[in-house]
């Protein structure tokens, strides 16, 4: 029996690897999709996850104003703050922001704190000896930045400046009136308005473009094995191979097992190559690196389960189709529909609630959820058991229906 299985596996492997069209569908197309879609949707996913701007802050001030402004931007979730070791000149800053090296650059002038404090004294006393020019904080902007994003940054900056200004004035008043209230004891007149979605958003995974697209298109590629698998099986039936095999010593289950093994291996190679593409190739082409989370080993049971589901589906399609053309066209169409429904082409997070609920009917949705759990939430194997279970159940149901139908066709030919 082992020799029969070995022969069936070798036969199927040869057929797969000599079918150039099938190889293109299984390996080249998804790799190209991952590359194109990950790069194309990079910015869109960044926005979805929360925009982060790169901001160079050149702080020439030694006092509280410079420190407060730097702190305000560092604490904000929307900025990647870069503090240069040596202070660049204005021309360099202007050139580098124009070139897009930084999206924003902020220059806090020398003695900004002392000038602001002096001015606050002038405000309270009217003595001209305290009068200084208004502190000029300069903002450089990458010309490619959208207007609405520029407005958001300006609003953040001006709000911070106003806060600092208020603090300095309040402190000056306190000093003048002899109040002993400390800086941190200032009364709060208005409570801060908070983002009502802040907590909900943080619960949901916000994948990067490559975290969405690599497993997404990888899943689609794995299911695309339906085309060669169902095609060859239907051809074997219509061209008399199965008829001949039925009169031979080998049970038909050996022939089916001979298909499952090589396609399972093909699936593992597919997902392996796509993940490697995300980790190593995409960054070389200017894309983000695929971050696989702290438990990449959880990918193994997940991809095994997905493969089982895909092969089961392929055998079911083969059992119900009469011609290879029917199997190819139905297989491809149904996979694209399952892919669209499963959030491969359009991420689930941008779907309306009803559509998000419908995605449970696509096995690819469960597979993608499994990958996102590993990549984004850092789930380990125990964290993806539900997804693995659903995929295995889907595969088992398809396989059972397929075998029943297949046997019926063979005995009622």
């Amino acid at each position, binding site marked *: 029996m082992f020799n*029969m299985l070995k*022969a069936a596996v070798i036969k199927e492997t*040869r057929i797969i690897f*000599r079918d150039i069209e099938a190889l293109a569908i299984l390996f080249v197309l998804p790799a190209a999709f991952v590359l194109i879609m990950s790069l194309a949707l990079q910015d869109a996913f960044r926005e979805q996850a929360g925009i982060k701007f790169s901001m160079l802050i050149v702080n020439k001030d030694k006092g509280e104003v410079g420190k407060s402004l730097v702190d305000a931007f560092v604490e904000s979730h929307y900025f990647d703050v870069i503090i240069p070791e040596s202070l660049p000149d204005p021309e360099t800053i202007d050139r580098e922001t124009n070139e897009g090296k930084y999206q924003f650059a902020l220059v806090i002038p020398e003695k900004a704190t002392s000038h602001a404090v002096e001015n606050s004294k002038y405000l309270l006393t009217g003595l001209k000896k305290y009068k200084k020019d208004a502190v000029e904080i300069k903002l450089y902007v990458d010309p490619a930045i959208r207007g609405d994003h520029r407005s958001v940054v300006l609003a953040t900056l001006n709000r911070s400046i106003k806060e600092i200004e208020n603090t300095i004035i309040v402190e000056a008043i306190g000093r003048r009136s002899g109040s002993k209230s400390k800086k941190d004891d200032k009364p709060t007149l208005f409570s801060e308005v908070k983002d009502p979605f802040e907590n909900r958003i943080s619960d949901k995974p916000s994948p990067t473009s490559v975290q969405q697209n690599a497993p997404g298109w990888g899943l689609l590629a794995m299911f695309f094995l339906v085309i060669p698998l169902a095609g060859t099986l239907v051809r074997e039936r219509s061209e008399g191979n199965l008829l001949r095999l039925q*009169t*031979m*010593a080998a049970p038909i289950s*050996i022939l089916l097992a001979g298909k499952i093994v090589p396609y399972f291996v093909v699936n593992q190679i597919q997902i392996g190559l796509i993940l490697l593409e995300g980790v190593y190739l995409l960054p070389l082409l200017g894309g983000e690196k695929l971050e696989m989370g702290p438990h990449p080993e959880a990918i193994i049971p997940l991809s095994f389960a997905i493969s089982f589901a895909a092969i089961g589906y392929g055998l079911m399609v083969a059992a119900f189709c009469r011609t290879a053309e029917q199997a190819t066209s139905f297989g491809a169409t149904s996979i694209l529909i399952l892919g669209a429904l499963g959030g491969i082409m359009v991420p689930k997070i941008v779907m309306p609630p009803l559509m998000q609920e419908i995605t449970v009917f696509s096995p690819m949705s469960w597979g993608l959820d499994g990958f996102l759990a590993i990549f984004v939430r850092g789930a380990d194997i125990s964290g993806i058991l539900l997804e693995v279970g659903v995929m295995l159940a889907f595969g088992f149901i398809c396989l059972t229906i397929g075998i029943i139908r297949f046997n019926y066709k063979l005995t009622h030919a």
Partner: protein
Amino acid sequence: MEDEEFVAVRKVSKMYSNSKLPAVDNIDLSIRQGSFFGLLGPNGAGKTTLLSMICGLLAPTSGSISIGPDSAKNRQSQDNSLLGLIPQELALYPTLTAGENLAFFGAMQGLSGVPLKNRIKTCLEITKLVARVNDKVENFSGGLKRRLNLAIGLLHEPKLLVLDEPTVGIDPQSRNFIFDSLRQLNNEGMTLIYTTHYMEEAEQLCDDIAIIDSGKIIARGTLDELLHDNQCQSILFRTKNPLPSTLIEKISALPFVEKITSANNKTEILIGNNTPDNNFLADILDSIRNAGLDITSLTMGATNLEQLFLQLTGTQLRD
């Protein structure tokens, strides 16, 4: 030994769920060991169903089939090692080489290692494919594919070889080669069941012929027996002048005449199966003489299997 029954079909019927009539209707058939048995019939006559049941691919609705010496066993419970099937379709993998196809099907027959290699070599020699062993089947001609198809069926040295129209779409040279190979196998003691729509193939090859129609065996015997037993069923004659249309109409109106065809002074008349005696010949000859025509030659009975086949199964087109 040669007269021993090798295939026993006992009162076998097969009824499909989507049909009101049986595809095979209570057939009794015994095929001798070492015979070259031809199973002929028009499309839809029931030959594929009967063959499928003999091959164990279909279970009979009633009756029993057995092959080989253990006739007590039902076909469904017998193993398939005695039987080799050469299906009508080219049951091959086109992207594999001839050798790879043979290796796969050989393994599926339970062969492995040196015995498998030896059998592949022998079958390639029988079918003269040794030089093409490493060529992909997709580059083969129709004849080469048919020869490989035959080689695969011989891998496990079956005692019974079932061939379903094995020469469809090939050139006369390849056909002749396959005939020679089959004769050789038969001479070595292999029992063959051969179905074909080419009657001259059955004439050349088969020493035992059955004609099946509407699920029943309607004629059985050697070629000579079949032609002799049905000799009064056809009249073929030539006249000096062509038959006038009025005479053709008159003859075709005779109650026993099933069909008349006349062209180039040559006329063939098929007589209905249920015609009781030979009086019809006098009636026909009287009609011709009364029309003032001279008969230059006259032959009675079918002269070949094709004529007999058409006599027995009719000339109506089948689905």
